[in-house]
């Protein structure tokens, strides 16, 4: 145990002095990623505001002139109507981005309105950017409401008589559950990915780097066995990867706290505070530890085999998909935490965290996740040890 600690202490000091490792494991997750997220949110808000304030260029057929819709829309300062002669011209203008939307009503629109019949209104838009479609539909709904009322008066009907039932929605989900639904899958995806990246960088530096720098022979001829060396090194990789994951979440939370108040509703910020309790954080870290051991366990054989950093990263590249895919499964709708999913590595951590974010009681599934990861982590370490002990790999 003492020798494991000696190796651990030295390796920790060594990686803490490596700028490349520090950049990947500390600087990027803590500052850069949250900053990028912040910029993305800010840009989205600005683009949304810009679109809301932009006057809509609406193409209108000359044949449809003079009906009630045209008159109402003409009075809207946020809409500028342009006239054209055929539908093809509307479509071409939208495609060429000369128009934001187009509208076409049947020729007998007004007469059908007068006869209390239903008229057809066709709208044209490009679904690449449906902001204007939504705005146009909202405007048409507003115009439709008084027309319906007028028709009811004319027919001497009350609204109740033509409404067999009304649907009232009562969403019993708390804000926290809503938050869990939308962001619960995203958060574990981020920290699982970061812990893998951190683990990868450190494992390659600690194992392949030792070979590349020519220090492996020196170390292996000292009175410390290979298991002790491997445990010391894996210890550093696990510490670094867990730290990276924690920092990636802390970074996002820090940015929310410092800069999010203007763009994120106060209630949401309050919920974030309620979610990230010490117990929540402890439960996530405890799950992350065997997960990072598992990551290390699958990366050590590659890092031991590779002659240099370049070879190691090229062999490890496909492993990224093996991590991303199970983490993404948890973001899919309908995928729930159960007896089976709690035994699937990576997916189980993502689902457990997602449920915990939503405030659900994960109970037995958390223990199943933790226990299964311990088993997978141990198996991966045993496999690693076999590869690390293989003299053909280590002195390749």
């Amino acid at each position, binding site marked *: 145990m003492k020798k494991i600690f*000696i*190796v651990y202490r030295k390796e920790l000091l060594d990686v803490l002095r490596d700028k490349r490792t520090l950049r990947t494991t500390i600087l990027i997750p803590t500052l850069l990623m949250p900053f990028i997220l912040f910029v993305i949110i800010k840009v989205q808000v600005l683009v949304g505001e810009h679109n809301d304030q932009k006057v809509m260029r609406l193409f209108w057929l000359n044949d449809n002139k003079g009906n009630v819709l045209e008159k109402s829309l003409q009075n809207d300062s946020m809409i500028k109507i342009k006239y054209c002669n055929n539908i093809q011209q509307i479509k071409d203008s939208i495609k060429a981005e000369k128009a934001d939307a187009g509208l076409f009503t049947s020729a007998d629109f007004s007469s059908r309105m007068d006869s209390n019949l239903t008229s057809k209104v066709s709208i044209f838009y490009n679904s690449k950017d449906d902001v204007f479609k939504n705005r146009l539909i909202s405007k048409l709904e507003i115009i439709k409401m008084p027309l319906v009322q007028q028709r009811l008066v004319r027919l001497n009907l009350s609204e109740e008589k033509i409404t067999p039932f009304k649907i009232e929605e009562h969403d019993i989900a708390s804000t926290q559950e809503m938050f869990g639904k939308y962001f619960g899958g995203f958060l574990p995806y981020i920290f699982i990915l970061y812990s893998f990246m951190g683990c990868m960088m450190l494992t390659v530096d600690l194992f392949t780097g030792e070979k590349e720098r*020519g220090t492996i022979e020196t170390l292996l001829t000292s*009175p410390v066995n290979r298991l002790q060396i491997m445990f010391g090194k894996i210890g550093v990789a696990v510490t670094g990867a867990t730290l990276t994951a924690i920092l990636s979440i802390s970074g996002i939370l820090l940015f929310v706290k410092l800069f999010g108040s203007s763009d994120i509703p106060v209630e949401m910020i309050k919920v974030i505070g309620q979610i990230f309790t010490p117990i929540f954080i402890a439960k996530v870290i405890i799950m992350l530890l065997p997960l990072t051991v598992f990551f290390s366990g699958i990366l050590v054989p590659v890092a031991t085999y590779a002659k240099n950093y370049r070879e190691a990263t090229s062999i490890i590249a496909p492993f990224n998909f093996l991590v991303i895919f199970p983490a993404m499964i948890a973001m899919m709708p309908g995928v729930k935490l159960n007896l089976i999913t709690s035994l699937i590595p990576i997916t189980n951590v993502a689902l457990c965290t997602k449920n915990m974010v939503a405030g659900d009681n994960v109970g037995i599934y958390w223990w199943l996740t933790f226990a299964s990861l311990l088993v997978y982590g141990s198996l991966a370490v045993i496999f690693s040890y076999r590869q690390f002990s293989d*003299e053909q790999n280590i002195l390749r």
Partner: protein
Amino acid sequence: MISVQSLTKIFPAKNNFFFKKKSETAEMLSRANSVDNISFECKPGRIFSLLGPNGAGKTTALRMISTLLKPSSGKIIVANLDVEEFPTQVRSKIGFLTGSTGLYARLTANEMVKYFADLNGLDDATFKNRKNELFTLLGVHEFANKRIGTLSTGMKQKVSIVRTMIHNPEVVVFDEPTSGLDVITAANIIELIRHCKAQNKTVIFSSHIMEEVNLLCDDLAIMHNGKILFNDTMEKFRAEHGSHSLTEAFIETVQKN
């Protein structure tokens, strides 16, 4: 003392991380570095040299002595310990030095030496005395707190020597220790080898430079294609080859076989 008895090493061929199948190239490479039934003995207070061309199997033999590789067959005894039965104990008795310094660039000389002293289980007092003695002898004090990555090759080699000798090993293994070094740095190594002999340590070193061997060694084994072609004292080798220069004698021995 080192006793090598009927030592053989065969490397199984391996050529890909995902698909481990045999290939002709891998087979050829493994044969080039193998060792074929060799025996020799290195005695305390004498310098034993393994001489041979590249790929002769010298490094493989030294790696087996240092417990880095496991023999396919045969026996190695180092300081009265069987290397296969007691590898950790054997490693605490040996110092291993190669031409490539094998140092951690991000550590200081002090940290590097302390790390290996800790791995060797040295107590604080012994470590301080030993470090002070070696640092003074080699003039390491002035750059002891500088990161190794910033040191010159000569300085690095001095740190490497301290690292090798910090636990005062009974047996010292030098694998082509002067390879790639300038004359002055190489002279430090030669001085160290002589110093080890004077301290009655068992010294084995590999080389392909005849002049170096002539300068230092007491006993000599010439290796080629994994086999030992000559194994006796240096005096006998000189006597056998009379008027020939030693380099010519070495080439003649290798070509004859």
